[in-house]
Each structure stands twice: as structure tokens, then as C-alpha cells.
């Protein structure tokens, strides 16, 4: 069979940053994890609505101040990540590093506050199902914040080595995507865990 030249692709970009397959791969990962978030939230609501009292008798709903502060910090870190991405698009490596480090610092603060908050819980995970849910869901999100931090630290190290340029910034783009997921995943948990018991 004769083969003839239909097109030449030697000039196409090798760096497509927001149409690269990896970009869609991370979206796939986020879709999976969002389903997990949804499953946990639904399980929480299911058990909440099927219980006569929520939280169990003798307990007040968990304090809402620090989780709200955390929510603010998480949302702020999305902004600083976005800013970091804009800086490297403009070719500003220093801006990128500052943006990434700020975001990591914000998430670290969240982890510290979260640790204090969990230490102050008046119940254990094996006391009742409310305790099980609080510990599991907070722990789940804690682990995700921790992985977003370590991942972004690696991206920051690569940034200091000059790996990222306005063309080659896929690493920053996909890290930001995942970062945004981890930060925003707190919203449904926050509403379910801290507002749910107050509203029903």
C-alpha cells in the first residue's frame, strides 16, 4: 500500500501547558478524589439524618472558629498559587518561588491549627460514630493537605533550579490544579461537619 504524506507535525509545540495529556490526567485524579469527598460527605449526612441526636447526647457541636479560619487560609492559598503561576508566565522566576513558598506556608499553618483542633476534640474515634466521622474526615483532609505541601515543596525546589520557564511550566500548572482541589475540598467538609449539626 502506498503511503503519502498527509501532514507534518515537526513544528507543533512539545510544551502545551493546558491541553497537555497530563493536565487531563490530573483532572481525572481530581474527579476520582471528588467522588471520594462526595462519598464521605454523603455517608456523614446519611448517618447524621438517621441518628436521633447529632452530635450524641452531652456533646456540643465542634467549635467553629478555627475551622473557619482554616477555610480562609486555604482559600487564600489558592490565590497565592494563582499568582505564582502568573509570575512564571511572565518569566519572573523569583515571583514564582515567592508565590509557591507563601502557599506552602499557608497550608503549613492550616496543618498546625488543625493539629491543635484535633487534639482538643472532646471525643475519640472509638466513642461513637460521630467521633469516627470527625476523626476520619478531618484526617483524610489533613493527609491531603500534607501531600499537597510535599508535592509543592518539590516543585519549589525545581523552581530554584531554574527548571520552569514561561514555556515549560506544566509542572506548576498541574500542581496548582491539585492544590486547588485540596484547598476547595474543605468547603463541603466544613459545611457538613461544622454547619450540619447546627442546622439540623
Amino acid at each position, binding site marked *: *500500500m502506498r*503511503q503519502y504524506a498527509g501532514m*507534518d507535525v*515537526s513544528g*507543533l509545540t512539545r*510544551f502545551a501547558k493546558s491541553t497537555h*495529556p497530563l493536565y487531563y*490526567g490530573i483532572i481525572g485524579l481530581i474527579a476520582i478524589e471528588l467522588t471520594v469527598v462526595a462519598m464521605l460527605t454523603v*455517608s456523614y449526612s446519611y448517618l447524621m439524618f438517621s441518628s436521633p441526636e447529632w452530635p450524641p447526647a452531652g456533646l456540643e457541636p465542634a467549635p467553629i472558629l478555627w475551622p473557619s479560619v482554616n477555610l480562609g487560609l486555604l482559600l487564600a492559598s489558592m490565590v497565592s498559587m494563582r499568582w505564582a503561576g502568573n509570575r512564571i508566565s511572565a518569566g519572573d522566576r523569583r515571583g514564582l518561588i515567592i508565590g509557591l513558598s507563601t502557599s506552602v506556608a499557608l497550608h503549613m499553618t492550616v496543618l498546625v491549627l488543625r493539629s491543635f483542633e484535633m487534639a482538643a476534640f472532646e471525643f475519640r*474515634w472509638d466513642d461513637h460514630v460521630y467521633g469516627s466521622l470527625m476523626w476520619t474526615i478531618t484526617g483524610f483532609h489533613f493527609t491531603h493537605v500534607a501531600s499537597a505541601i510535599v508535592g509543592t515543596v518539590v516543585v519549589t525546589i525545581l523552581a530554584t533550579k531554574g527548571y520552569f520557564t514561561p514555556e515549560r511550566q506544566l509542572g506548576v500548572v498541574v500542581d496548582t490544579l491539585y492544590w486547588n482541589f485540596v484547598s476547595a475540598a474543605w468547603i463541603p467538609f466544613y459545611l457538613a461537619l461544622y454547619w450540619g449539626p447546627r442546622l439540623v
Partner: protein
Amino acid sequence: MSKRRDDAPSGDLETKDGRHWEHPQTRDAAHHGRREEERQEPLHPTVEDNEEEIRKLELAWAAPTGFIGWFKPVNQRIIGRRFIVTAFVYFVLAGLLGLAMRLQLAVPENDFLPPEIYNQFFTVHGTAMMFLFAIPVLEGFALFVTPMMIGTRDMAFPRLNAFGYYVYLIGSSIFFVMLLVGMAPDTGWFNYVPLAGKLYAPGVGVDIWTTMITFIEVSALTAAVELIVTILKLRAPGMTLNRMPVFVWASLVMAFMIVFAMPSIIVSSSLLILDRLVSTGFFVPEMGGDPLLWQHLFWFFGHPEVYIVLVPALGIVSTIVTTFTQRTLFGYTAIVISIVATGFVSFGLWVHHMFATGLPHLGMSFFMAASAMIAIPNGVQVFCWIATMWGARIQFSTPMLYVLGFFWVFVIGGLTGVMVASIPFDLQVHDTYFLVAHFHYVLIGGSVMPVLGGLYYWYPKMSGRMMSEFWGKVSFALVFIGFNVAFFPMHQLGLDGMPRRVYTYLEEMGWSELNFISTIGAFVLAAGFATTFFNALASLRVGPKAGNNPWHAETLEWVTESPPPPYNQRHIPIVNSREPVWDWREEQERPVVLGLRSDRREVLVTSILDAEPHAVQVVPGPSIWPFLSAIAASVGFVGILFHPIFFVVSFFLAFFSFVGWFWPRRPWRED
């Protein structure tokens, strides 16, 4: 385009922008006239293959060899083949467990298997068939076939592919080894609490079930993301969504279903393992938990799961029907819409497994309607296949025979499915052998038979040789007869009231004859499967050479050699229709893509809807890191059974191995 004729030097075009290419041929009336002209004076220069380029390409795509090399390859065909082979090994092992159960039930009050071993056998049989065989084998076929069908050289994330395989291999081995040491789970494949709670199942068996199933599902999820991105982004130029082969559509729908169904089993089994290891109370009523939550979460996964193994099998059926009738598939659009509809509706059915749990009636009516509704898209497909075959000169080779067997068995399974979708009937046969008969008809008929057909069909592409037709037909006859003899009597047994999961029964129940017949059928069925496996092994050496396209099929995997070179295709083809290979056979020429580098692994990235090229992806080569990452993850999944600290250990081990995996190593400054 015509001006290229003058300035294009020996096969290399000037165009720097792939976006503005035209379809080299259009299928209108004028096209034939133009083609006449071209015969005299070709518009497009012929591409001559250059030995030097081919050598470079082979070097860039070659998989490492040797013992250490076994842990490194990332090429999609190697990983796909491994999935298929490993899955069939589990099929044989779990099948042997099934035979042992049938032996036990052959006569009343048999003592071949003690009850506790019988419980382990049916649990491992069911779990292994679903999680260790059905999903991986279909993923294996999808990983092996779809990239070639869409005309690319590898999948979008080759290393993730390898990672998924090792996770599956490690998880499934640990799961199965537990059976040898007599500590396998014994609570049934859906592992209902409270039976599976710490109180009633104190052993390590259920712990292993929960951790290893979670772990293996990670592998299913990686394959799913991999398939979605590969199918959406790496198709050959011109393969718009409505030209995609039906099998690719089916793989895509399967992958989406995995993405939204598997997290549910991961959440449910994680909650169960927490209940068992650190005494949380999710499923413990005394602590405010609810055992029904397990059933909801499990079946929200479990029902789509049935369609996850069915949908790609339906894709295989469409492929085989098209090839062996040598006709355009009737109702392509209807079939694709049916597949997609099946995917959606399958998420609205899970409660029909729970009709006997006393949920509110209004809700149950909804699920009853949805359960009956899923028959519609599946019926549409069956009618489209009948229309394709109507009046065609069908070639009755082994793959086609398996498909015809599938029609018979699957339609019966579908009919009993509609029966149990109705609540009054379901309550009558709930947990009886009627259900056992129903789901074996659906799973073996709907999934195993097409998979065996697919094995005969794609075997030439995998090995370069044909499987024996004679033994193939013998195997089909044994499978078809054996299957019906084994499972049809179970309908009656169920109506007579024989419950499932009992290790024996009394003679006075009157179930003896049918059980004995069923056991004979099971052995005939096993002989049929064995014939196919020996056929496959023997044909590796003695099968006749296959050639590129032994079945005269129409999809892209058949244009390249059998087995294909490590880079799949010398040139990425350009596609203009749904049956590109048949068109090229008529036209005796085909357009290809130039400009991918031969000295590193490059694949073409195209747009999602219209498959217009817009970038090139450099995919990574062989690496040991995916294997190390899989080990790091297994440390966590096995370790937490002993101490929670392993969760943290594994977190950091996995982190370091991922850094090793992703750290930019190629001379990136010169990119």
C-alpha cells in the same frame, strides 16, 4: 495543499502548523474524479521508509530485557498483555475453586469440603472473578487494543500503566496466598456487615479483603484515567469522536464508570478496615453506625461494576460482528448512545440489590423502574447486531461463534434480570440459586464469552500466530453446552427454594438430581475453557503465521505487523472514515503523519472532538520507579494490618518514590 507538490522535499512537508491541514480526501462525488487525476500525477509525494529512521525508532521504543528489565517496561502492549495473562491465571484458579464447590454440592450431605473451607472458597471465587479476573482482563484488552485502534504509539502515562500493573500483581497475589494458608475471607464477595465486622469475623481474612480490594482498585483507577486521557487526546488525526471504533467507545465508557464507581468501594472498604482495626463505629449500630450504609456504598460501586465488565465486552461483540460480516455496523450512533446510556443508568440501580432490606416503598419503585429501563439500551444493541448480520455472509470462525453464544446466554440472563427487577418476584427468589443462575448467565454470557471471542480475535495481533480453529470450535461447543447444563438447572433449584451459599443440603429437599446435572455441566464447561488455554499455549509455537490482517478487519490495529514493532506503527495514520482499513484497501494508498522524532518517544496530541493535531507529547521511557512506588504503597496497605505507623511510613516512601519517578532526568535544558 496542491502547492506542496512542488516544494516538498522527499517526504518532508513544509507546513509548520498542523492546525490548518485539510482532509486529504473528502468522501464526496467529486472525490473520485480527483482521485483519477492523482493516479497520473500524485498530489502527495510517497513516503519511503528509511532503514536508519526505523532503527532509531526501534531503539527509542525498545523495552529493556533481562531479570531487572522485567520490572521496567512501560510500553502499552507489554502492560496490556501482562494484565490479560495474569487475569487469566486468576480465572483458572478461581474456576478451580468453583469446580470444588460444584463437587461438594454434587450429592446431598457430601463431606468433600468442610463448611469453613467452603465459605472461604465461595468468597474467594466471587471476589477473584470480579476483582482479579473480570475487571483486569477487560482493562488488559482495553490497554492492549485501544491505543493501536486509535493509531497512537503508547498511552498518555506509560509509567502509570506499569505502576497499575504492579499494584494489581502484588495486591492480588497477597489476596490469593491467604487461601493457601487457610486464612482467606469467608464472608461472601460483598462482605456484608455485621457478618464482616470484627465481632463475627475476627480473623485476618476480612482485613486482607478490605485492604487488598482497596489496593487493587487503585490499579483499576489508574488504568481508567489512562484510558480516558489516551482516548480523548491521542487519537490519530481525523478520528473524530463519531469515527471512533465502538470498542474504543466502550472502553471510554468503562473508564468513566470506573472513575465514578470505584471510589465508593474504596471508601466503604476503608471505613470497614477502620472499624476493624481502630474500632471506629461506621457500621456498628451500638455506636450509632448503620450496617445498611455498607450496602449502599458497596452496591453504588457493585452495580456499575457489573456494567463495567459488560460494556467493554459489548464493544468486543460489535467489533467481532463487524469483522465477520464484513459490513458496516448497523446503527453506529444508536449503539454508541446505548453504551453511554447504559453507563449512566447503571448508577441508578444499586438499590435493587437491597429490595429485601425494607427501604421505603416509593424509593424502591424508582429503582424497580430504573432496573427494568436498563434493558432498553441493551436491547437496542442486540437489534443493531441482528440488523448487521441480517442477510450478511457471516464467517463462522471461533470469535464469531463465541459472539453467537453470547447472544443466547446474555439474552436469557437479561430476561431473568428483568424478572428479578420486579420487587415481588425478587423477594421470592432473593438469596436463592435463581440469583446464582441469573448472574452467571449475565457475567459468563455477557463478559466471559465475548472475552474468549476477543482472545481468539486479537491473539494473532498479540503473538503473530493464529490459534487453532478446530480446537477453538471444540472449545466453544464444550463451553456453550457445559455452561447451559451447569447453570440452567439452577433457575429451577432457586425456584424450588435452594438458598445460595450453603455447603450442603438434605436428600429429602429433592435438589439432588439437578445439582448432579449441574456439576457435570461445570466439568464440561471447565474442559471447554481448558481447551482454549491449551490452544493458546500451543499456538504460541505451532500456530500458523498470522500476517497483518488475518480477519480482514477494519480498525487500525490491523494495518501494522503482527506482533507490532515496539512503536506500534511506523507512521501515525490519518483517518477519514469509520472503517479506515477497508477504505485504504480499496484506494491502495493512505495518508500518514510525518514529523514525529524517531530518537525519542513522541506521540501526537489531538483535540478532543475533532482530533485535530495541536501538540506533541514526549512520553517517558522504561523505569524502575513505578515498581518501587508500587512496593512503597504495598508497605502501607499490608503494614497497617500490623500497626498504624505504616500508614505514615508508606506515605513518605511513596513520596520519595514519586519524586524519583517524576524528577526531570532527560537533558531538559535542550528541549
